[in-house]
């Protein structure tokens, strides 16, 4: 089974972003591997260790610096990588999920992948669309928010997280697109020897603009602003005033 894992280079989760000129200021900001993509890589590597998968290919769409992201994936255990170069902003401002999923579609068809593992969403754009769109383009089954995956390389049973509980879905026949949620696994730390060995693994580079895909955004971003600062809570005297406020001020009860 050949697995293609999407890895995205995003603003590090610990960074406090600033909005400048109606856009998130990315200058000199620490960038990292998207946490959900990291979970996807971990799952792919585990499937290889269980001998269910025989090759894990990591793919990223991004600028020159995205090679670091690929290197992390390779250090975790991916066999080789594909770098789709582009200087377009990948945080939804320029490159958007529809274009991204078409790029993935092309690579999946070339690579003849049997399983695509993606993070459920990028922590910059929070779209969660690439997985479902890709499945639609490929006409493959999709399972999103996977919290547990069991497969023998032919069929797959996935536990899917929803707001009302866990849903178990069976795909009788691969290929499929699966997006990974937080509880799926705890990613390993890349060891120093593996980080150095990752340098020797094969990385194929392509240019996004040369792939014959329309990369223009489908949606126009009108405004980017920071959320209003959280207002201080207020103390109430008794239950009646609480109910009054919930009813008449907050309007959350009838």
């Amino acid at each position, binding site marked *: 089974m050949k697995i293609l894992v999407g890895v995205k280079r995003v603003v590090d989760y610990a960074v406090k972003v600033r909005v400048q000129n109606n856009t998130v200021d990315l200058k000199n900001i620490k960038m990292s591997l998207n946490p959900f993509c990291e979970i996807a890589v971990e799952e792919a590597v585990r499937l290889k260790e269980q001998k269910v998968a025989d090759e894990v290919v990591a793919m990223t769409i991004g600028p020159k610096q995205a090679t670091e992201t690929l*290197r*992390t994936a390779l250090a975790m255990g991916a066999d080789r990588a594909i770098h789709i170069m582009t200087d377009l902003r990948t945080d939804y401002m320029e490159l958007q999920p529809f274009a991204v999923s078409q790029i993935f579609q092309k690579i999946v068809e070339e690579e003849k992948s049997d399983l695509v593992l993606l993070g459920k969403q990028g922590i910059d754009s929070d779209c969660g669309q690439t997985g479902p769109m890709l499945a639609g383009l490929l006409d493959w089954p999709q399972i999103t928010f996977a919290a547990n995956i069991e497969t023998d390389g032919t069929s797959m049973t996935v536990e899917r997280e929803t707001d009302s509980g866990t849903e178990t879905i069976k795909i009788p026949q691969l290929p499929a697109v699966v997006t990974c949620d937080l509880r799926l696994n705890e990613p390993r*730390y*890349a060891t*120093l020897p593996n*980080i150095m060995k990752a340098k020797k693994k094969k990385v194929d580079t392509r240019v996004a603009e040369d792939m014959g895909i329309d990369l223009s955004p489908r949606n126009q971003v009108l405004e980017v602003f920071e959320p209003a600062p959280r207002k201080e809570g207020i103390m109430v005297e008794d239950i009646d005033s609480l109910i009054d406020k919930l009813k008449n001020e907050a309007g959350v009860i009838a």
Partner: protein
Amino acid sequence: MILATISRCAVATFRRSHSIRQLSSVITSDVCEDIVHGPLTTFSEDEEMTRDAAKQWAQEKLKPLVRRMDDECKLLPEVIESLFQQGFMGMEIEEEYGGSGLNFTSACLVIEEISRVDPSVAILADIHNTLTNNAVRFWGSPTQKSKWLPRLAYGTVSSFALSEANSGSDAFAMKTTATPSKDGSHYTLNGSKLWISNAPEAGVFLVFANADPSKGYKGITAFLVDANTDGITVGKPEKKLGLRASATCPVVFENVKVDADDILGDIGQGYKYCINILNEGRIGIAAQQIGIAKGCLDIAMPYMMERTQFDTKIADFQGMQHQYAQIATEVHAAELMAYNACRLKESGLPFIKQASMVKLYSSQVAERAASKTIEWLGGIGFTQDLLAEKFYRDCKVGSIYEGTSNMQLQTVAKLMQKDYS
């Protein structure tokens, strides 16, 4: 003597590379690597990834265990195992021997990041990497390297057994002897070492003993001794002010038989090896002290920005601002000195003076940072609710081990005289 030899050939290297730089069209990439003019706080991709790996491991996996290890005066076996698994124990060892083939700067970055969380864990890794591993890499025979380096990379902790009760700064006054057998096939070690870090966990000791006391210090020889050898007794760990989780013990050698094949390098050259390896090892100590200072600021700054008195964040009081700005400036100066010393060493340029300077200075900066941090935190800084008090206790040995501050000042003074003569 050694210093003069090292400076002469290093100056020659520098001159050669300097003149090559002027013929810019014929610069090879390795020469270029030596004369890069980027800021000292920028690192290569390898170095950044290495630093990030250490930072993440230390902050996420190590931090929750720090207080417990300090209370129990013991490093947890799973922490040591994790150090090996993550590759933090074989950093500069070549890949063919099971290491990561990283450079000295990378090793120092790791020491700094681990120290920022727990200097006791860092010292185990520092001694292992910068003293033992590198001594074997520099002076070991191919057979010795194949025998020891993989063990050192994969799972064997090492100790550096030099000091004795009567020989600290005056290292050459050591009394441990190594008596050769009649046929010279083995040596018998007799003596007592003191202040040996990691002794209970060590699987191998790098022991300095005199194989010919009639020659004075020129009889000192370095031996790689398996900890399982009969006759070795590791005494009880000292009860210390700081670095409590790092065991510091007496180690007694009573008729310990060591194969002549396990002599590191040449007989009687041990004095040279220990001086040389400590010259560089102390840059690692500087990295530890800088990590301590940064660890203190990591606790102090968020606290000061949250704590209010008189309706003001205490971080906004000018008196406080002046103090923490001063400390941060000194930490920055120390870190530049440390990474410059690393680059000097990597370039084959003279670095002994700079290494002594940074070891001296960084231990002073760490002490100031830790002391101020407790004051800035106020009452809570004085309790064990925060790790600040631990850093305060841990930093004190920085001006003592791997060459006391007075010895560093001596070294710098002697080299200054050389510069001006």
